């Protein structure tokens, strides 16, 4: 994208295009709707190779061959994609693909208990080849009874055991896109669109059906017959005791209007053993006719949506069997358009698929857009506008819901009025039926009596004849006594018999009278029935009126709520788009924040580092003070020691002086003693002087210590302050670090939000058909695609062609006749299919969901991987064989050529230079084992996601 694409195209543009002279094609209309509503004006289209693989998988069930890709890439005509669509649809493999689609959709891989798969597939194929519309096909399926001829059509019913509940559910899901199961016993608890009367209305149709064994050829088979319906009553488990009438109805529609028949008059073929009964009024017939009339948007949109999903990967309504307002279409207008156009073209599936294939929507690129910023910017206004619209739609929805509520209560009120009358009618019917039985019995009695009379009459006649002849004989042979006796006996018996006959005739009259009485009574009851019927009629008319109002209110409610939810999804998608820029801006701001915080952190770090010198100085000061303190203390110790020593000397001298003076008192005038005293005193003076000195020294030392203590204290206090400051600075650094970490964490969260938003946006864009989406290959596509890329299919096909050409070669003339050519192509396809179809089973058990389960959900299981990785069949199919991709790789001398064969053959595209390099490296590493290496490479591609999905 070189410039920002804005999406400012409005609805008028689309409306304008409709007014153009030539009616627009459906694909143009679809593209116009998208253009009018898309957030990305012209999203990019996929490459030619991608388109070819996509269309080929969708329309023929297999990827294109390498040669087909080469030819398509080389074709320079501008309309080559459209031409390719037509070419693919002309192939009998398109018919096969459509049959597989219809088979899986209709039967969901249920076991074949009544109709073989071969019969069923052949029947579908015939319909597809005859280009039957979906309406015709559906009509046939819904009215089938399994009688001779078109027995296969009844498979839908018969292989579901003809169970009314299962049929209610599956006809709802498959033909109308509505799974009503949870509305069986009460209004749907989660889905407000589905009501119990919908379920009961559908059930009333299928409750009339039943299975009957009928002789066909030399065996007995199950057929699906139908009773004449009548009103059944039901109760909600939530509101016990309030009976409702379960008139037959289609989901969302009014109750079926049914003619009234007196009991005994309901059938054109009455139910009996080994007989398919046919009621005069068939609910199934009415269902089929109503549903396929083109007027039922549920029926039209269901198939349009399923065919959309067939081509686009996901339906406009994503869960194809739960159309409801909370599973809204990604584009309501488009769903309506698709449904209308599909119905208007006589439900022509081919034409519809062709139109889809020609849309630009179908050709969207799959890759994530490189840059969504410009769109994100542009989406802001759209988002605001869309949000503004929400309130109005919400209000409309609330109003519609209120209307529905009112309509529903009025309907139930009218119904409550009708219920007793219907009950009365049922009683009257029962009474009439009972009386009819009596009439029949009386009639049988008359008939029996009349039979008796005629039997007796025959005897009377023959005895009378015999009597006459015996009389004549007796007259001719008057002598014969025995003969005379016999004649008399005859005469007597004749008289007796005549009397008996008379009696029997009397009995006949009696029975006739009795019969007449019962018939009169029956007529009387008939009168009663008619009286009740007359009573019922206005009540039913009133109900039908309320029913019509209810239908209108429901359709309005469903549609408004659908619109609301669809709109909200659009708002959500726009929000995601807007979020692209919002989150990007947040990320940019966050990166700025991180930068600021990092700078703060650097500063804090510097503060810590710079302060180290101050700490050192303070530490040194403290150390110095401590050392001074230690020195002073040592000096004090020395001074004190010296002082103590001096004191000891003084004391010793004092003791000596005292004892010498005591001696002088004893020896007064002793000179020596006097001298000694004088010397001692002199000495004492000296010593005391020194002691004084020492004391002074001690004092000095003490004051030195005090001084040092003060200095140390000062140094210590200073140190503590410095340490405090250092701690503050470290803390500041740590806080800065935390802020940086937090900011980095927030960035990571934002980046993860961005990834999530991106993924969600891509999903939304895919849903809104701005991008294409991945679509897993079906089990059948997996099987045929593997056969295709490994050359197995072509080998078998070549064999069939050779055989046919030998057995019944086409003349040159025939080769010019498109019909004969098509017939031959179909025959080749059918024979190849028959030869290979035995392999489908293992793919179905491996890659398809279980029987009777929805078949459109993707799952990846270990057994699939094990089957592909280690299973015998795939290993043998990837082996080199007559001209297949593996052999072509082996034969390719240059690795570039080998890579091209590999990627064209399996992925239907050219390899990138890196991919070519990888292939070359792989082959080179295996030297002499090239065949094995080639086989491994082919396997690697087949087992990769690129092969497993359509994209």
């Amino acid at each position: 994208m070189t410039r920002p694409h804005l999406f400012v195209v409005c609805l008028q543009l689309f409306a304008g295009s409709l007014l153009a002279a030539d009616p627009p094609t459906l694909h143009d209309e679809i593209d116009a709707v998208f253009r009018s509503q898309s957030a990305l004006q012209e999203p990019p289209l996929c490459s030619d190779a991608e388109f070819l693989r996509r269309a080929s998988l969708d329309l023929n069930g297999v990827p294109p061959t390498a040669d087909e890709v080469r030819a398509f890439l080389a074709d320079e005509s501008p309309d080559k994609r459209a031409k390719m669509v037509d070419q693919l649809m002309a192939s009998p493999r398109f018919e096969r693909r459509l049959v597989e689609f219809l088979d899986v959709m209709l039967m969901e891989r249920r076991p074949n208990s009544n109709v073989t798969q071969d019969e069923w597939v052949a029947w579908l194929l015939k319909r597809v080849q005859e280009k039957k519309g979906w309406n015709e096909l559906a009509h046939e399926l819904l009215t089938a009874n399994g009688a001779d001829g078109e027995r296969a059509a009844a498979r839908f019913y018969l292989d579901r055991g003809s169970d009314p509940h299962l049929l209610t559910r599956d006809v709802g899901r498959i033909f109308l896109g509505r799974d009503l199961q949870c509305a069986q016993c009460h209004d749907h608890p989660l889905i407000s669109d589905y009501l119990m009367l919908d379920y009961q209305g559908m059930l009333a149709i299928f409750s009339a059906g039943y299975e009957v064994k009928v002789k066909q050829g030399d065996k007995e088979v199950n057929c699906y017959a139908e009773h004449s319906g009548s009103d059944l009553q039901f109760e909600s488990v939530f509101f016990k005791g309030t009976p409702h009438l379960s008139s037959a109805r289609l989901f969302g529609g009014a109750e079926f209007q049914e003619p009234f028949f007196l009991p005994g008059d309901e059938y054109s073929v009455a139910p009996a053993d080994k007989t398919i009964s046919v009621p005069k009024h068939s609910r199934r017939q009415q269902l089929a006719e109503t549903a396929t009339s083109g007027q039922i948007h549920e029926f039209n949109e269901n198939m349009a949506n399923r065919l959309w999903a067939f081509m686009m990967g996901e339906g406009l309504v994503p869960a194809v069997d739960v159309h409801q307002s909370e599973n809204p279409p990604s584009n309501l207008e488009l769903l309506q358009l698709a449904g209308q156009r599909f119905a208007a073209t006589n439900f022509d599936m081919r034409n519809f698929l062709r139109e889809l294939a020609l849309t630009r929507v179908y050709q969207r690129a799959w890759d994530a857009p490189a840059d969504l910023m410009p769109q994100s910017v542009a989406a802001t206004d759209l988002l605001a506008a869309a949000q503004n619209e929400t309130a109005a739609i919400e209000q409309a929805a609330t109003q519609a819901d209120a209307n529905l509520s009112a309509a529903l209560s009025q309907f139930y009120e009218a119904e409550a009025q009708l219920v007793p009358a219907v009950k009365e009618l049922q009683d009257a019917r029962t009474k009439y039926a009972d009386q009819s039985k009596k009439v029949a019995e009386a009639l049988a009695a008359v008939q029996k009596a009349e039979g008796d009379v005629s039997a007796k009459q025959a005897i009377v006649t023959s005895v009378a004849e015999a009597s006459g002849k015996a009389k004549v004989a007796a007259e001719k042979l008057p002598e014969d006594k025995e003969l005379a006796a016999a004649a008399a006996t005859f005469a007597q018996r004749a008289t007796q018999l005549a009397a008996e006959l008379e009696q029997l005739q009397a009995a006949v009259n009696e029975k006739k009278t009795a019969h007449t009485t019962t018939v009169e009574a029956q007529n009387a009851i008939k009168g009663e029935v008619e009286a009740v019927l007359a009573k019922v009629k206005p009540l039913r008319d009133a109900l039908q009126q309320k029913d019509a109002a209810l239908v209108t209110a429901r359709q309005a409610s469903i549609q408004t709520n659908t619109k609301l939810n669809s709109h909200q999804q659009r708002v959500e998608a726009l929000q995601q788009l807007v979020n692209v820029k919002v989150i990007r801006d947040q990320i940019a701001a966050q990166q700025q924040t991180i930068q600021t915080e990092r700078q703060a952190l650097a500063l804090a770090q510097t503060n810590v580092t710079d302060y180290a010198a101050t700490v050192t100085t303070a530490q040194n000061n403290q150390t110095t003070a401590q050392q001074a303190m230690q020195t002073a203390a040592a000096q004090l110790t020395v001074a004190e020691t010296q002082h103590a020593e001096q004191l000891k000397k003084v004391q010793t001298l004092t003791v000596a002086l005292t004892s010498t003076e005591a001696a002088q008192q004893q020896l007064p005038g002793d000179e020596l003693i006097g001298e000694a005293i004088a010397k001692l005193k002199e000495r004492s003076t000296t010593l005391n002087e020194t002691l004084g000195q020492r004391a002074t020294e001690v004092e000095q030392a003490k004051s030195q210590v005090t001084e040092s203590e003060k200095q140390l204290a000062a140094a210590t206090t200073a140190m503590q302050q410095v340490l405090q400051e250092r701690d503050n600075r470290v803390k500041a650094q740590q806080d800065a670090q935390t802020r940086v970490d937090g900011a980095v964490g927030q960035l990571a969260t934002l980046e993860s939000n961005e990834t999530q938003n991106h993924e969600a946006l891509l999903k939304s864009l895919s849903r809104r058909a701005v991008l294409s989406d991945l679509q897993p290959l079906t089990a059948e596509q997996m099987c045929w695609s593997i056969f295709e890329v490994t050359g197995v299919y072509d080998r078998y096909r070549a064999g069939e062609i050779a055989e046919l050409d030998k057995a019944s070669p086409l003349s040159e003339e025939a080769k010019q006749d498109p019909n004969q050519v098509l017939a031959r192509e179909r025959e080749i396809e059918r024979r190849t299919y028959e030869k290979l179809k035995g392999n489908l089973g293992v793919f179905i058990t491996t890659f398809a969901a279980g029987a009777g389960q929805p078949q459109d959900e993707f799952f990846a299981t270990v057994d699939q991987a094990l089957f592909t990785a280690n299973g015998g069949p795939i290993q043998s199919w990837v082996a080199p064989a007559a001209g297949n991709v593996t052999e072509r790789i082996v034969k390719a001398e240059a690795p570039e050529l080998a890579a091209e064969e590999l990627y064209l053959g399996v992925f239907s595209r050219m390899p990138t230079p890196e991919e070519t390099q990888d292939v070359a490296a792989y082959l080179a590493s295996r030297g002499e084992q090239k065949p094995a290496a080639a086989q491994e490479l082919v396997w690697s591609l087949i087992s990769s996601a690129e092969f497993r999905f359509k994209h």
Partner: protein
Amino acid sequence: MKVPYACGSQEHLLARRGFLGTVAAGAGAVVGGLNVFSESQAMAELASEQKRVVVFNMHGGLSQLESWDPKPGTDTGGPFRAIPTSVPGIHISELLPLTAQQMQHLCLVRGVNTSEDDHGKGAYMMLHGRRQTPASDYPTLGAVVARTVTPADPSLPGHIVVTPGGSGGRGNDAAYLGPRYSSITLGNGQPPQNTERPGALTPESDAARHDFRRKINERFLNRRRTAVADAYAYSYEQALSLMQKREIFDVSKEPAADLERYGTHDFGRMTLLARRLLENDISFVQVSHSNYDTHNENFNFHLEQVAEFDRSFSAFVADIATRGMLDSTLIVVLSEFGRTPNINQYYGRDHWSRAWSVVMAGSRVARGAAYGKTNANGTAVEDGQVDHANLFHTYLQAVAVDSSNSFDINGRELPFADPSSHGIPEILT
């Protein structure tokens, strides 16, 4: 060949690739396809402790009178006696002498009344906890357990059925839970299909081709990452992981002495395999024992058949208990129904669902207990009557799963068990 995603593999994936979670938020309420999106919510419903369940399915209908609820000396009792067990007061048939010695671990449920005498329907009810209805199919107990009980090893399958026949492939018994929770059937104790490297490939070339596959996938995913493509690529890694653990399924790796203890017959081998699987953290294993449908010669048949069961089952229970696994393993012995008290003219007993027995053991189930009671000759339940739905709730509750919970399948709430029924609180501790 078919191994479903073990339960939780998607959760694993979810953890691996965090972005998936919000894809769901963006995609709205209804998410088709992979179901990965609702899984995280399912995770919250799961039990925290690793639990396991093993079901012994006594195919054809085991006679309760010749097993768990004998009535000797009555008109219906038949020829066999009742013997005392390791729990005073509880007697079972003399055909189960070894199991009688394990009674302290077991809980007999003797008041089962399922009112369904048809094989198919009875079996469906017992294994699904509900009656079969044509319009809706339910997942089997194994699928529900595989989905609700967190596996210790998400690369292993969570739901295994061991049976004498069987393909080694995936069953169709998970209904709306999808193929990931379907059973794999291990026929005759063989490992799942396709778990061996093809003979023609050397380990090196196999590794090389898988590396090449990874490289291709990585390129593809780099173009645009999607949950489905990621899940598909990841399934191959799980497959490789399973191949490495292939021996888990190989019962011959168990000591010969153990096989001797369990019995060298099929059932002994399968029961031993069940022990091996449970020890390797497989969440659910079902073992079948065939065939108890003894319309003729009921007594001779049970004499033989029950003896076989007795040996394997008693050894199994003892092993589970001594290996400390009983607290986390629920053991169930069930049938589709029991057999008539009335003995028919061929010395057989016919189908009977009015008063029969199921046995449970382990996890939260009371030990050494007998719950429910039939009358003197076993023709009616007198006390503690339960049916298939009560039992199903109880199985789940026994392994700490809230059976009143519901699955969220694309926005549809589908209850784990019949919402109109409930468990049997009396036998849960």
